């Protein structure tokens, strides 16, 4: 990381962890914490989708993993009394495992074929949640207790959320930390050999194999990491909402994750984060347009994709002439 990037990162942390809470506290608009928490978590799931784009696959199935992650955490917390903090990585790993099983056959597909199959995944996950006894069907799982205390060697790292005077603020901090860690991991992946190999895969799978890259393994690895992100995002969502239903994540969510990536820019690690932020608030802002909301929203999306096919962040490129 060079000095300029480090400075930018520090400024970002300052805004997220100091400035935004201060402003919200001053204005008393507590609901905003909840909104920003959602944005942070959605951007974690979108980060996964972005990584699958990075190996040249269009992933419209992230909602499935968010749903699975949510259920895994909810079931473990409510039925086995496991600490939420432990269920978070378990949910991620479970999703990664499922994605390996699913990915083995479907990652051979390319282009629109892969996209179609992933599109179906979210629906399959929803129907499965409806049918299984353990997920308790359409009733879903409700009254999930708030996350308890997280302590290591007797040291309290995170206090129990129930004991917080303002759990919303707690969730905001937690989701933001998760988002920052996710994007640091993503940034590191992209800027290490792992990312270079993903790019080689995206640009030419055959050539990639001929320079000795185990392309099947790399595709699975990227997809598993992607689904891990989806899983932990879903787990946190369930915990915050204290409930999860088969309809908590639907096809439209999966499509949105993909749109966040498109809008932010597929060539930029922080594209999906920016895309999530813009689209989420853009949609909210457009609610003043009442029945024309969807029409304007779609129109703007199409226009943006035409004018900025490489995403909003490509504006920076044009100004600086290079990445």
């Amino acid at each position, binding site marked *: 990381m060079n000095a300029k990037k480090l400075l930018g990162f520090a400024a970002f942390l300052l805004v997220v962890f100091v400035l935004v809470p201060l402003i919200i506290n001053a204005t008393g608009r507590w609901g905003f914490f909840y909104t920003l928490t959602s944005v942070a978590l959605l951007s974690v799931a979108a980060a996964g989708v972005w990584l699958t784009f990075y190996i040249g696959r269009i992933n419209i199935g992230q909602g499935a993993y968010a749903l699975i992650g949510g259920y895994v955490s909810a079931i473990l917390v409510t039925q086995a009394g496991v600490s939420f903090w432990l269920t978070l990585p378990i949910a991620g790993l479970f999703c990664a495992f499922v994605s390996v099983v699913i990915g083995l056959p479907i990652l051979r597909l390319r282009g629109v074929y892969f996209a179609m199959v992933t599109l179906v995944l979210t629906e399959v996950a929803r129907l499965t949640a409806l049918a299984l006894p353990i997920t308790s069907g359409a009733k879903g799982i409700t009254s999930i207790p708030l996350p308890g205390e997280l302590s290591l060697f007797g040291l309290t790292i995170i206090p129990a959320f129930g004991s917080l005077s303002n759990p919303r603020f707690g969730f905001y901090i937690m989701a933001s930390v998760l988002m920052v860690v996710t994007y640091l991991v993503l940034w590191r992946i992209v800027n290490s050999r792992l990312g270079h190999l993903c790019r080689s895969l995206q*640009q030419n799978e055959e*050539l990639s194999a001929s320079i000795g890259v*185990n392309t099947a393994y790399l595709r699975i690895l990227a997809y598993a990491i992607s689904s891990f992100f989806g899983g932990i995002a879903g787990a946190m969502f369930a915990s915050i909402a204290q409930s999860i239903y088969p309809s908590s994540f639907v096809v439209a969510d999966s499509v949105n994750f993909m749109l966040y990536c498109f809008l932010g820019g597929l060539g930029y690690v922080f594209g999906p984060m920016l895309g999530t932020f813009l689209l989420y608030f853009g949609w909210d802002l457009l609610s003043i347009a009442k029945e024309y909301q969807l029409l304007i929203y779609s129109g703007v999306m199409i226009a943006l994709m035409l004018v900025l096919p490489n995403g909003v962040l490509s504006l920076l490129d044009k100004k600086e002439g290079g990445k």
Partner: protein
Amino acid sequence: MTPILQIKNITKRYGGLTAVNDVSFDVKAGEILSVIGPNGAGKSTLFKLISSFVPATSGEVLFNGTRISSLAPHKVARMGVVRTFQETTIFRSMTVRENIIVSHHLRSKASLLGFFLGTKQAKEDEAAFAASADDIVDFLGLQAIRNELASNLPQGHLRALGMAIGLATDPKVILLDEPFAGMNHDETMKMVGLVRRLRDERGVTVLLVEHDMPAVMKISDRIVCINFGQKIAEGTPKEIRENEKVIEAYLGSEDAAIGM
């Protein structure tokens, strides 16, 4: 000495079409061997069979006495048998140097996790790759375009880049599919010189498919000629030039006569 490659009765059928039919020949370590034949004769398919990009219907390929057919292509590359492509295949949105660096993958000692964590070994690897990439850039005379985006390169440079990518994998045997296609006389002669140096200075065994007969005759130690998927002749350039079957195959096709 065992030949570095042994192609044994290899056959490839696509439905009713036999693209390669019971072809056998050996390749000696350190030689430049060309495969010639009219369009559609099965040359590219033969290369795909050797590099294990397509499975053989029957027959096998041995590398230093070990069977490599039926291995995954990346494993064959790992053993040192590397194919570059007929269609100039490169990583389009990377620079020349990035193309070459990423292609050093086979030489990495660090694991992917090591690279992610930035371990000492990973840093050493990356430094070694960069140094080696610069070597290759010099070797192929690509200094002027090292930071050029691959998608912006003209034909001739693309071929050289394809070869650079192949070289980066540190191959024992390199398979070049039509390395001189689309080149003018001067460019071809330059490339011929490069292929020679590849063998002479780096000890790489070269297999190549080429249509440019004068170039083939000039560069090859031996030539294998195939027609309709079958081997019809094998020998030195002189023997091939005088071979009745070869002359017939070329006269019977729309290709230019085997002139020189």
